[in-house]
């Protein structure tokens, strides 16, 4: 097709980010659910990762809100809705088939909300999102389009992994993945990285010690990665 508007490039990026946010959230909550078995009110470690206050009555309230409450901006349901909102205006780029997986995820999440064994009900959602990414890979021929989605995906994953204090070797791999995607971005386009912030990330994520000490600064630099740099004459 060869012509992408600014609006669509933005949508592609956020499609990648929200789909990944949904995916990582359901996986993290599934693990959290396991940790909470037999322990009352045991989800503060999860909330701390995101600096969120504890406004939940109990474990059940926490898990249901973070999974199914579309009005909770930190929930899986909220992220999926936003992914769908972005995807629906990208049909001709991502294909009806790819979009159908997001619709399927929405339907499956709604059904999961009505089932007692939440963890079991979430399993098909992981399958659906893997299929979505397979479909994206299959249907998008334009490398630039695919790369913008992947930048959103890898940046979101790295951001979440750092916040959730994932082990260094996993974070390092995701950073390498992000750098590969960033290198494919043509100059003069919105997803061309800021050298300054990329350098900060290289510095922090270059060693396990720095990662442990300066994770917050890494998250901050990720948030500014696409800022236009000032040019001094």
């Amino acid at each position: 097709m060869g012509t992408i508007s600014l609006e669509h490039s933005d949508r592609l990026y956020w499609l990648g980010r929200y789909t990944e946010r949904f995916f990582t959230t359901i996986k993290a909550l599934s693990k959290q659910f396991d940790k909470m078995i037999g322990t009352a009110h045991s989800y503060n470690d999860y909330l701390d990762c995101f600096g969120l206050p504890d406004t939940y009555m109990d474990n059940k309230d926490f898990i249901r809100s973070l999974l199914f409450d579309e009005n909770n901006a930190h929930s899986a349901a909220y992220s999926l809705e936003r992914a769908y909102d972005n995807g629906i205006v990208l049909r001709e780029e991502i294909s009806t088939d790819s979009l159908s997986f997001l619709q399927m995820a929405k339907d499956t999440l709604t059904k999961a909300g009505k089932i007692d064994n939440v963890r079991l009900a979430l399993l098909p959602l992981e399958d659906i999102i893997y299929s979505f990414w397979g479909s994206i890979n299959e249907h998008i021929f334009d490398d630039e389009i695919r790369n913008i989605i992947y930048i959103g995906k890898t940046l979101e994953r790295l951001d979440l992994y750092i916040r959730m204090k994932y082990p260094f070797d996993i974070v390092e791999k995701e950073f390498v993945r992000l750098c590969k995607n960033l290198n494919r971005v043509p100059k003069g386009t919105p997803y061309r990285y800021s050298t300054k912030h990329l350098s900060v990330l290289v510095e922090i994520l270059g060693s396990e010690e720095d990662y442990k000490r300066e994770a917050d600064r890494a998250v901050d630099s990720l948030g500014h990665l696409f800022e236009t740099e000032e040019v001094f004459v």
Partner: protein
Amino acid sequence: MTQQTQFTKAVGNASEINELLRRYGVKFGIYKNGVFNEQFFPFDPIPRVISAEDFQSIEKGLVQRVNALNEFLFDIYHEKKIVRDGIIPEDFIYISKGYLAECEGITPKNKVYSHISGIDLVQAKDGEWYILEDNLRIPSGASYPLIARDLTRIAAPQAFEENPIIDNRGYAELLKETMEHVNCGGARAILTPGRYNAAYFEHSYLAEHTGSVLVQNDELFVEDNILYHRTYSGGKTRIGVLYRRIADEYLDPLTFLPESLIGIPNLMEAYRSGNVGIINAPGNGVADDKGIYYFVPKMIKYYLGEEPILKNAPTYLPFYEEDMKYVMEHLDTLVIKDVAEAGGYGVVFGSDLTKEKLEEFRKTIIAEPRRFIAQEVIDFLDLPILENGETVMRKADLRAFVLSGETTKVWASGLTRFSRNPDSFVVNSSQGGGFKDTWVLSR
């Protein structure tokens, strides 16, 4: 057993296909009390079946009609011979909201005005097909039977093995050819008002399947009378043909409504200069005005020298004294249509009105005779639909799609819409109607 009854059992169950349609996001938008909602378009798995013989006659009739309408549009925006020769009173041209003085003298590429025509037909109980209305501006609906056929073939492949059904899945290719026929050099684009438009699914689906760029107005600009798409890298791509899905009056704020926020400034200048094809041509509304509908059979004779193959529903124009007299005498049995309305709105069945309302309406017609047309209520053929596992009969119409490119072609399919209300003739999706597949048989 009628042919329709014979096919009643031929396809799979409703829930399977509706589940698939849901999965593929086959929706339409609707505003209720100012709030936008997306709804799934209910699909009925019992197809409407059109025999090869019937289709042959419909096809000829539709090609004839659309060719005459295209001639009419050229004439109206140029010499207006049909007015001068007294075939159509000039009142019907200049009072029509669809007539745009700004289009005077413009000749679209290859003289095609209505590239995609949506012609609504009904079949009467005696088997005769009648034209209900012509839609020559931005007729929608082709994407629904297109995707439904794809999904029905998954849900019930045996139906397509056992029956000689013409494959309708070439619509996108047909549309692409039609777009290319008026491409003035550049990419193909479909202009949508955005996600919150009732037909957004269709816009995006057709963009995907024709390989066109789906655009909104703020992504487009005109420079030196050429239309461009602004790319994310700061560059520009020339657009050679624009299939716009927004109404004429919003297309270009410098030519039409200045308050339009969804138009493209100077688009009409680029079009007038022959640098971009616009599908359908601006100004087509004059030809699908409900008042002009009455004159289409006369147009066919005037421009083509042929007898109309397809009939109009018997129609009266209160504008004419004789017709006004008839309408006043038979108001309680006629259906009255407000020519300015569309989408099933502004349609009143005299039989539904109380005595007081009837009198009130009578006065409105006398006061504004040009605003209404009156038609005999055609006792149209009911079609079977499945409702809660039972087969029930409902009113249905057919929107046929006629594409005018190098030649005029009728898509061997169409959108069959039905009323879900047993007492209603109104089939529009915006008013709760559903749709079904339309099988055109090859033999």
